């Protein structure tokens, strides 16, 4: 037997009615979303259902959409049914002012660090996580750097002293400051 996107969709609608929404299949991968309160119910259903058997958590990450009021953060689960070799993508959206989402660590041990990473970069608060602290960034950091309100540094800024990193005087933004190497060549430095 082979599991198709239509069957999965049908099973999900049977179980959750119109709670599970936004069915699409970009590049062949079934994608859907559910209210964040239901995330564990949906994950458990996908895991336990004898037809679906999505028992491998491939990936877990977040995306920030600052323009969607009330649904700014998306937590994205990529699940894989290894027996039938089908993948699905499941999203839950949450308000950025109260980014509480239930943890999936009870179901997948692999979710532990992936959720910590998501918390670290997006500030999603995984309720019930055994050890929700920063993982890649320093503990003292007091913001969530992957959110869109923190743009990357403007590469043409001139107010920063970058000389120790081989920039600064090299590019010549600082006008009057002379390159030391050039001074040696000109014989001005002994």
């Amino acid at each position: 037997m082979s599991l198709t996107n239509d069957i999965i969709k049908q099973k999900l609608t049977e179980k959750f009615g119109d709670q599970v929404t936004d069915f699409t299949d970009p590049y062949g991968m079934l994608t859907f979303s559910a209210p964040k309160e239901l995330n564990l119910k949906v994950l458990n259903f996908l895991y336990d259902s004898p037809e679906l058997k999505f028992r491998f958590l491939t990936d877990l990450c977040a995306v920030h959409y600052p323009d969607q009021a009330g649904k700014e953060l998306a937590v994205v689960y990529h699940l894989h049914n290894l027996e039938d070799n089908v993948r699905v993508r499941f999203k839950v959206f949450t308000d950025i002012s109260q980014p509480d989402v239930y943890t999936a660590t009870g179901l997948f041990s692999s979710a532990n660090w992936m959720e910590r990473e998501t918390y670290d970069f997006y500030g999603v608060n995984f309720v019930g996580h055994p050890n929700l602290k920063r993982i890649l960034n320093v503990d003292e950091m007091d913001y969530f750097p992957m959110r869109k309100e923190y743009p990357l540094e403007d590469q043409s800024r001139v107010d920063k002293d970058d000389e120790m990193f081989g920039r600064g005087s090299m590019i010549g933004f600082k006008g009057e400051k002379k390159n030391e190497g050039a001074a040696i060549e000109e014989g001005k430095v002994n």
Partner: protein
Amino acid sequence: MSEHHIKLPEGSIEKTTTTLNLGPTHPATHGVFQNILELDGERIVSAEQTVGYIHRAFEKIAERRPLYQITPLTDRLNYCSSPLNNMGWHLTCEKLLGVKTPKRVDYLRVIIMELARISDHLICNSIVGVDAGAYTGFLYVMQYRELIYEIYEEVCGSRLTTNIGRIGGFERNFNDIAFQKIEKFLKEYPAVLREFENLFTRNRIFMERTIGAGPISAERALNYGFTGPNLRAAGVDYDVRVHAPYSSYQDFQFDIPVGTTGDCYDRFLVRNQEMWQSLSIIEQAFHKIQEFKGAEAEVYHADIPEYYLPPKQDVYTKMEALIWHFKIIMGEIDMPAGEVYHSIEGGNGELGFYLISDGGRTPYRLHFRRPCFIYYQAYEELTKGAMLSDAIIVMSSLNLIAGEMDA
């Protein structure tokens, strides 16, 4: 004189276990990450991992870069097999853009990817040997990794962080020297690998050090998100090359070696077997490439002027080519909006790229699924109750690469 001035922390006398910092710059960690081990004598009571020492915010940086400028970032994930990461990224972009690559490009890519896999497994396995006290194997096989790096060098000009290929194919055709080197590798490597296996596989000391060290059941491995050789050593035959063939892997005949117990010895054997399989794949691809005749035998990229740089002589003489060259270099080309996940079988397992494009010139969001990061969290479970020396060999047999872990 009996009075001493060392102030011991509260409760330190009563404490019966010893805390040991393994890393971040310990030679046995082979990379920058830390394990805080709690030891009872020589037994490990608990282990806590700290990662992130070389976090470089690739995902954030990628949000401001056009597609082809992200390739050098992927080099620095698993730097033992950068071509695999590069190809994975190019394939992801091609999936988003809907590019279909010619067969010859696929086969050339397969050769490079399998060479990269061999170099990755070779390092991992010989390092397991080093950590078990056998340095010879490591030095011996290093020559042949060098040969692989020379092949990269012929193809793209660099060795470690390769930035190999382009979206749609390669930057130039493989030259004769490259093919000669591949042929030389195919001819000489089997004897070397056999000797390497002879050195370890039935070696009494090596077996006693690795059998039963850091075992994991198939069920736990899946729950921990293991992929690649580490999962296969536990007995699950999941291989992205077979389950979701990319780059024409369906045209090749190869086996997926599996282990049973998921311990260090099985991981070692699986990696060794995979090298044999890779060799056979390279050989098949090499023959398939020889079969192309005429104009087909010169194809080395897909025809996608929006993403593939035009030939230099055209840039200097033709207006159209000059415009495309400028647009590509400046990253002025908007990509289609979409959401794509693509994964390849990397050196350590399923290396995934989750790319969201909102139709701009740069990705809206790019997430790397780094196999290493995901399975390293099982380390505590793997080493609980084991000896300190096992902890080190488990670490090297998992092939933990700090670059991949920290992204």
